[in-house]
């Protein structure tokens, strides 16, 4: 007999939280993998975008420990190709925000060497701080 997946109320709460923050009906994802195939950053990810969606569907908070959401460059390649019309960029943003709103920053801007800061254009620094710091 195939074991049934049981979601606890904690799992359901996490799924609801991500669904609300992202505005996406995450449960509509049918795991076709088009997002993972379209993602230019997937090589550096520990879990694929499709796996990220599956973990959220199952309400698994450990998705927050994955690197995938931080490696996402918000290029919207998955967004335009998702056959279910889901915006995965918004789901990744919701996961980042859950961490950032707990003051868990992804980068320490002070640790970037001064010559690199001077080399980077303003547009890179502003966008990096917006995406990786709370």
């Amino acid at each position, binding site marked *: 007999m195939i074991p049934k997946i049981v979601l606890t109320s904690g799992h359901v709460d996490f799924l609801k939280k991500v669904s609300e923050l*992202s505005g996406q009906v995450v449960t509509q994802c049918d795991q076709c993998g088009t997002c993972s195939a379209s993602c230019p950053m997937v090589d550096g990810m520990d879990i694929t975008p499709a796996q990220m969606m599956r973990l959220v569907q199952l309400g698994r908070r450990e998705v927050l420990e994955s690197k995938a959401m931080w490696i996402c*460059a*918000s290029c919207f390649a998955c967004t*335009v190709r998702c056959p279910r019309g889901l915006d995965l960029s918004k789901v990744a943003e919701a996961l980042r925000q859950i961490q950032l709103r707990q003051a868990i920053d992804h980068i320490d801007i002070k640790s970037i060497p001064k010559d690199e800061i001077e080399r980077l*254009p303003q*547009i890179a620094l502003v966008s990096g701080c*917006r995406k990786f710091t709370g």
Partner: protein
Amino acid sequence: MIPYFPGCTLKTKADFFETSALRVARCLGTELIELPRWNCCGTVTSLTSDDLIHHVAPLRDLIRVEDMNTSGEIYQEYRLVALCSMCFHVLKRAHLRVMQNPGELEKINNLMYLESDYQGKVSVLHFLELLRDIGFPKIQRTVKRPLAGLRVSPYYGCLLLRPKEVAIDDPEDPAILSHLLEALGAEVINNPFKTRCCGSYQTVCDKAAVAELTFDILSRARQEGAECVITSCPLCMFNLADRQKEVREKHPEFEPMPVLYFTQLMALAFGLDDVCGFDQNAVDARPLLQEKGLSTRGAS
């Protein structure tokens, strides 16, 4: 006169993008005037459903356009032109979001004390869209120095094309830069990676990953026969051009590939030699241009 939004990098590291674009527009009979009291758009769109505060900055810029009409500075001109792909994307999405969510617009208007309410009249355009409206035949007639024999590959990146509601062209197979290059007399080289992400803001914390993307995009352009690449985004420019240093550290066989703003090639073709800014590019295109008999007179 059409208001335009420069954004942070066009006033600093990409000032030659601004200078060349303004002169090119004037050459085509369009005067772009800098939006008064503009502020940073925020560079990235806030994507969470409950975060309204980050849409205030771009909306304030749109309100300035409506204010210019109210004060009589411009008459019935609600277009706002952006040159940077990221600014274009953020300004346009802020407008679309509040138009689709009137309740959110009311909240955002209430968050601001010193501004007029946003009426939703502004139409955000990328400079390339303005050029398309002006017409490629007119651009072709303005050319004084056709870029004959120069093999150029257009690079679009992400934010001009995705998501679909902001796209200035077909998100999967855009052609607007090809049409422009054809009008300038250049040879267009199609790169299948023309809409592939350059890594964007990942350049702040993972330059190795960005260098790898740059390597793929530029190597493919070269394989297709390109001698240089054009872009419309200062962040793409940094990742594709400046990060070639990191590319060569990992791939010593990689040969430098000049990456230019499309307005630089327009200025070259229009004979606006003093604003081409070729001395500003991270990878020098001047030897290539000299070889093609397209050298500018004077410093740039």
